[in-house]
């Protein structure tokens, strides 16, 4: 993944180039120039993917063995480790609308500052999930984690001090399943064109007019 900053119409983008466009991040899946996302050449890339990337990379897990819950993905048939990351929920700190006057008219930026919680599930039929759990948590303090937080503009909070053994939920699947929660502070925004005051369609009655 190569972060190239804000999308630019004159730049030649290659596969795995990451850009920021309209407050969203997009990863190039094909070389392109002057094709603004969203388009077939771009795939949206979100914080949950960034966290999965950090952990998979730091514990040396093949990225195809990590995925986001729930996509009806069939579990691997071998006994080795795999990772499922869940979006648990979010709580907002603030919710704002800021006017943005532009040359072409009036826009507003609507934004939300929020605290999201993600759950990391480590699963294996052998002992790997149990043995790797500390390394998975420490991955979130790694140099790679710092880089990812800077690129994607989020902040990983204090990782849950406890790890929960959810193996019993797997029943006859007989998986070792260990889970811990990751709180993330981040923000989302969107710019919208709004009617300027003199383009409102409703008339304002002028009491002084005779």
């Amino acid at each position: 993944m190569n972060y190239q900053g804000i999308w630019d119409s004159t730049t030649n983008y290659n596969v795995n180039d990451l850009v920021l466009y309209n407050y969203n991040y997009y990863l190039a899946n094909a070389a392109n120039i002057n094709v603004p996302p969203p388009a077939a050449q771009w795939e949206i890339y979100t914080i949950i993917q960034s966290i999965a990337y950090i952990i998979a990379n730091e514990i040396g897990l093949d990225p195809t063995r990590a995925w986001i819950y729930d996509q009806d993905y069939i579990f691997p048939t071998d006994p080795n480790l795999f990772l499922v990351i869940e979006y648990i929920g979010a709580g907002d700190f603030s919710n704002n609308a800021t006017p943005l006057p532009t040359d072409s008219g009036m826009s507003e930026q609507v934004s939300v500052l929020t605290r999201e919680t993600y759950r990391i599930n480590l699963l294996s039929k052998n002992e790997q999930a149990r043995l790797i759990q500390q390394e998975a948590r420490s991955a979130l303090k790694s140099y790679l984690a710092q880089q990812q937080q800077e690129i994607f503009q989020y902040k990983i909070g204090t990782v849950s001090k406890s790890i929960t053994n959810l193996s019993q939920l797997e029943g006859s699947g007989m998986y070792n399943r260990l889970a811990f929660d990751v709180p993330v502070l981040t923000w989302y925004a969107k710019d919208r064109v709004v009617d300027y005051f003199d383009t409102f369609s409703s008339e304002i009655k002028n009491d002084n007019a005779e």
Partner: protein
Amino acid sequence: MNFGNNSHMPKIQVALNPWLDDLTFIKVTQENKNFLTTTTNQTFFFQGTVQPLSPRELAIKPIGERRWGWWMIHSLTQLSLEPGDKIILGNDTYKVMAKNNYSRDSYYEYHIVRNYEEAL
């Protein structure tokens, strides 16, 4: 027991031959890229038969499962199918539940069950 080729027992392949049909199935394969799942469809052509399970095979299944949409595929060649694979046959989605290798008699058998969850 004689496992050689000189037996005068009837060959199942010979019995199957008049029933064979040109068939097509689509194998639905999952791929995981950037932690997101995508599916790809791959079409396979083969010569074989599709039949319901025999009464005996149904009888040995648990009562509830007997009413599921079971089918049995016979093919002269080994198909790229393993238990757990998802396929589209005709207009319906099925899951492969069993695979029997009777290559000694020159055929392969697969049991599939209708995937009602993804009814098309």
